[in-house]
């Protein structure tokens, strides 16, 4: 049983892998955490994690550049219904399209667009960087044991504007409401970094590793 963390050249995956290993160990979940750029590994994985840092278009191109990866993702996640977790830009890639610097199609798994954060208060800094409080909008196994007011670590300048309200599982306030956790069917995503969010993050990762949608 493999949990595949997809390595497509976007950022540092060591700390993410370490957090997943720790969460699995503490929750006594039997899964092998494997950082991989091999499409076949992703195709056969029990669970799939798509991290992502940097710009939407770069990540989209990076993912497309890995031979067979998009087809493997489509098969594992869309056809076989394997649990999928997108993190930060990895979450944003589920959108229909991103509008960061240029307009680029996303995977189109969760309806909506990725747009610039435009806080009502111009004194608010961009990127939205640091610890912010989650406000839960819907019950979901991913958020089991996590309450509104829990802190998570964010660093982003763009946000996922979901077309459907019901796809937003948690929000965060930053000069307006920002989607912090999205989910539909076997897909979930966090705008924040669970691997950097201490106990709350490890809890969410363990929930994901246990999740049977």
């Amino acid at each position: 049983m493999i949990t595949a963390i997809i390595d497509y050249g976007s950022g540092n995956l060591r700390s993410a892998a370490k957090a997943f290993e720790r969460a699995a160990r503490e929750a006594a979940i039997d899964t092998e955490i494997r950082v991989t750029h091999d499409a076949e590994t992703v195709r056969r994985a029990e669970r799939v994690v798509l991290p992502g840092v940097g710009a939407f278009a770069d990540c989209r191109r990076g993912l497309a550049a890995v031979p067979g990866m998009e087809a493997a993702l489509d098969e594992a996640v869309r056809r076989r219904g394997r649990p999928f977790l997108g993190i930060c830009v990895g979450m944003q890639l589920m959108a229909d399209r991103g509008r960061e610097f240029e307009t680029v199609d996303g995977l189109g798994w969760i309806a909506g667009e990725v747009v610039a954060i435009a806080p009502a208060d111009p004194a608010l800094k961009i990127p939205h960087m640091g610890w912010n409080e989650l406000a839960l909008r819907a019950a979901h196994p991913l958020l089991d044991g996590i309450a509104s007011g829990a802190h998570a670590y964010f660093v982003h300048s763009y946000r996922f504007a979901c077309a459907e309200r019901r796809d937003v599982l948690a929000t965060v306030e930053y000069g307006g409401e920002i989607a912090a956790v999205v989910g539909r069917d076997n897909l979930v995503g966090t705008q924040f970094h669970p691997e950097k969010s201490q106990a709350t993050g490890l809890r969410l990762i363990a929930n994901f590793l246990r999740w049977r949608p």
Partner: protein
Amino acid sequence: MLKMRVIPCLDVKDGRTVKGVNFIDLIDAGDPVEQAKLYDREGADELCFLDITASAENRDTLYDVVARTAEQCFMPLTVGGGVRGVEDIRRLLLAGADKASINTAAVARPDFVREAAEKFGSQCIVVAIDAKSVGSGRWEVFTHGGRRATGIDAVEWAKRMASAGAGEILLTSMDRDGTKAGFDIPLTRSVADAIRIPVIASGGVGTLDHLVEGIRDGHATAVLAASIFHFGSFSIAQAKARLAAAGIPVRL
């Protein structure tokens, strides 16, 4: 609501902390990883390592420290000191750092910041600015640990680095560093108000009220301190409690 950040910084040389007292609850007080774990438990919002290893051959000790920290502390880790090229950043990130802080190399070659931001994303590029007062309301950028003047205006430099793709600015007053007299508030506010990206105030913290001033009066969104935490004068928890008492949003 976004919380203001408290960031303890550790000076690391040849893989060991440089200064500090013997914390009785540390297995090895000279091990930066043990110190990082203590800060983690106390509620630090991020960690910062400043590597001051002089020789290139001992640089590997830093990567080892970063790797061991990343295995045990699941919070953002910034590493600065000796970051001169894209390859240095890559090695730090692969070891488990989240952000790399660029100082002298940015002045030597400003395009480096743009290249690094394009390669790794702005979120992991911190530009460290060491500034000294040069008359009323003006500050100049210094490099090489504050020894070398550049003739560059600090506020203009911060704007330029922000537009080059820096994700945040770590601003240190060389006049105040080590004095325990508090942040240079006019400097901090001048830079923070001039740019849209976050500013981390640094240099001069001697009391907990100095931390309050950096955010309330200096308009910084994070405060960095080394010695008050490292020498055990105050704990991270005490710092946060004081900020909260002053009405500043913090993660408790």
